[in-house]
């Protein structure tokens, strides 16, 4: 369709023979194959859904083109991939509404008069399938007793959605006020766990809803029954305020459904190297200091895709994201910290391991070619440097040579009395600081070496510490959800797993290598772990330390045989 030529005269839709459920109206009414997606669509132009259209396959229909005076329908039009060179990306892909079919205890799939809050929105809307006349789907009668069930698909770990969807309480309160305004004789009852009316004037709205006659019962229903004669529904719930099991009959039940991460989130996530929180939404760079920035530079978030939020918060976040993007675009030049990786082209064996472990896709590599670091994209976790077996990668300011020197210096005297700790800059090292600031007591045996990320700790660094006589080595980093380098600490886990196997194979007690996730706020955990490490250190004997030193000694490299010059014939 040519949106500029279309006059929205609707002649095409009148003659279109295809009838499909209208997605916008939640399937409560139908649409044609050529339609306006929703009443307020901008531009106000018809669109042609080629999956539904009979246009050219199997037999040409073409009725819409015959009646289209402006001649704006083009069957040969097709999807195009548009390439744009951009300096910043704002991700605002929204969320998906929870589908309650899996929670069948509320009878959504069994009873006609059980609907979702989204379907209710369509039924009560003047532009909806009933033109705003509120009727129940079962018999088209106007319901007079309505029950709302909160937290359907929210705050429920059993279905993998332990988080609060943030918007459902206020949406229900708004719906009850709407019903009280349009139909004063309607009785509303809300079954809830907690009413979360946090926000400007929200508490006022909640009080108005109660004053309008809405009954709020604390306790979610455990069962629902339908009266087959009249389609009425009975909810059985424990009123946790009175401690009584109550039965309430309604004409209609509305499930206040939550929201979840959108379907396309994984695709966008891999495209832009973004990370997710345990809830499945995108993770911001820092929850307090960089709430709209993605860990990947130049990418910002707005709206639901970062976490469930209402319209006001979404607008605030969108404004902030736009400001951050504009500031970046107008900066003229971008300053980055010099903590980036450098690849030695001569030493590089072109294996591509560095590119495969980089969480930012900041290393480009093609088979048979030397890998190249994109400085502007490199965040400096050092994971590539730890993964490279050929010493071909140097991480500026945190080089292997610097770490080796630190390890040797720390363990030069009385190594048997020390617990050697690698702590990541963002969490564990700050956790150690927190323990100190909070005046927490812990054994003095630990010696902490700071790395930007726990993934910077290479196998060789751990082995070197054991060679220098460390009785215990602790690798510590951010919790999974807090990793400042998207998912780099997953590589730490794999590396430590390999090291445990190696140590065991070499006859070294693998328990001497420990792994802990300590956040910046967990000063108490740092102190507790240090005490545990000290207890573990006391179990390591001098014989064990000496045996490990001998067992982990690097094997001398075999000198390369020089090729003999080919014999000259004759």
């Amino acid at each position, binding site marked *: 369709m040519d949106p500029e030529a279309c006059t929205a005269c609707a002649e095409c839709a009148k003659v279109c023979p295809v009838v499909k459920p209208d997605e916008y109206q939640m399937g409560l009414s139908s649409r044609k194959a050529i339609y306006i997606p929703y009443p307020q669509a901008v531009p106000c132009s018809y669109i042609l859904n080629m999956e539904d259209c009979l246009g050219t396959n199997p037999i040409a229909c073409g009725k819409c083109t015959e009646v289209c005076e402006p001649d704006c329908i083009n069957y040969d039009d097709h999807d195009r991939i548009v390439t744009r060179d951009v300096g910043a990306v704002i991700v605002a892909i929204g969320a998906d509404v929870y589908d309650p079919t899996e929670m069948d205890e509320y009878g959504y799939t069994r009873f006609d008069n059980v609907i979702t809050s989204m379907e209710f929105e369509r039924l009560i809307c003047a532009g909806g399938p009933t033109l705003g006349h509120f009727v129940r789907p079962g018999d088209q009668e106007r319901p007079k007793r309505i029950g709302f069930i909160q937290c359907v698909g929210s705050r429920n770990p059993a279905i993998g959605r332990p988080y609060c969807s943030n918007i459902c309480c206020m949406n229900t309160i708004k719906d009850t006020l709407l019903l009280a305004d349009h139909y004063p004789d309607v009785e509303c009852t809300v079954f809830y766990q907690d009413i979360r009316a946090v926000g400007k004037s929200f508490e006022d709205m909640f009080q108005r809803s109660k004053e309008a006659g809405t009954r709020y019962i604390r306790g979610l229903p455990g069962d629902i029954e339908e009266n087959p004669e009249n389609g009425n529904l009975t909810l059985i719930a424990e009123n946790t305020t009175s401690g009584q099991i109550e039965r309430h009959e309604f004409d209609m039940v509305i499930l206040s459904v939550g929201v979840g991460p959108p379907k396309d989130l994984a695709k966008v996530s891999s495209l832009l190297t973004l990370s997710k929180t345990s809830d499945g939404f995108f993770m911001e760079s820092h929850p307090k200091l960089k709430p709209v920035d993605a860990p990947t530079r130049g990418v910002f978030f707005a709206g639901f895709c970062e976490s469930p939020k209402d319209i006001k918060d979404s607008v605030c976040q969108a404004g902030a994201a736009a400001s951050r993007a504009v500031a970046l675009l107008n900066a003229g030049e971008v300053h980055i910290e010099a903590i980036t990786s450098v690849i030695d082209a001569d030493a590089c064996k072109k294996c591509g391991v560095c590119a495969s472990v980089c969480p930012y896709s900041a290393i480009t590599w093609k088979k048979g070619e030397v890998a190249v670091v994109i400085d502007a994209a490199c965040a400096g976790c050092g994971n590539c440097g730890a993964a490279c077996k050929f010493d071909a990668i140097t991480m500026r300011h945190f080089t292997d040579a610097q770490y080796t020197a630190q390890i040797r210096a720390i363990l030069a005297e009385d190594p048997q009395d020390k617990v050697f700790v690698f702590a990541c800059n963002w969490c564990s090292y700050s956790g150690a600081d927190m323990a100190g600031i909070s005046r927490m007591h812990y054994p003095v045996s630990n010696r902490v070496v700071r790395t930007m990320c726990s993934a910077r700790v290479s196998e060789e660094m751990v082995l070197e510490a054991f060679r220098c006589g460390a009785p215990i080595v602790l690798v510590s980093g951010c*919790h*999974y*959800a807090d990793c400042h380098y998207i*998912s780099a600490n*997953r590589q730490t886990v794999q590396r*430590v*797993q390999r090291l*445990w196997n190696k140590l065991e194979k070499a006859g070294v007690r*693998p*328990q001497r*290598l*420990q*792994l*802990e*996730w300590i956040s910046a706020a967990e000063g108490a955990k740092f102190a507790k772990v240090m005490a*545990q490490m000290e207890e*573990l250190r006391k179990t390591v004997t001098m014989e064990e330390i000496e045996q490990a030193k001998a067992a982990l000694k690097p094997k001398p490299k075999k000198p390369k045989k020089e090729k003999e010059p080919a014999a000259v014939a004759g």
Partner: protein
Amino acid sequence: MATMENFKCMLCGYEYQELVEEGEDKERSCPKCRSNSIRHLKARPSQDKTNGKGKKAKQ
């Protein structure tokens, strides 16, 4: 597909089994002592000798 996997806490030595989903990305901690030093114990290879292609090798 979820499989039952063996884990061992490298701090307290507690061994346990857990259902692991394919492609699961989960922080692990010991159910007993809460330590994160959790070693994934790989299943021991089967006693049956194979030729590397899933078929039994000729004895």
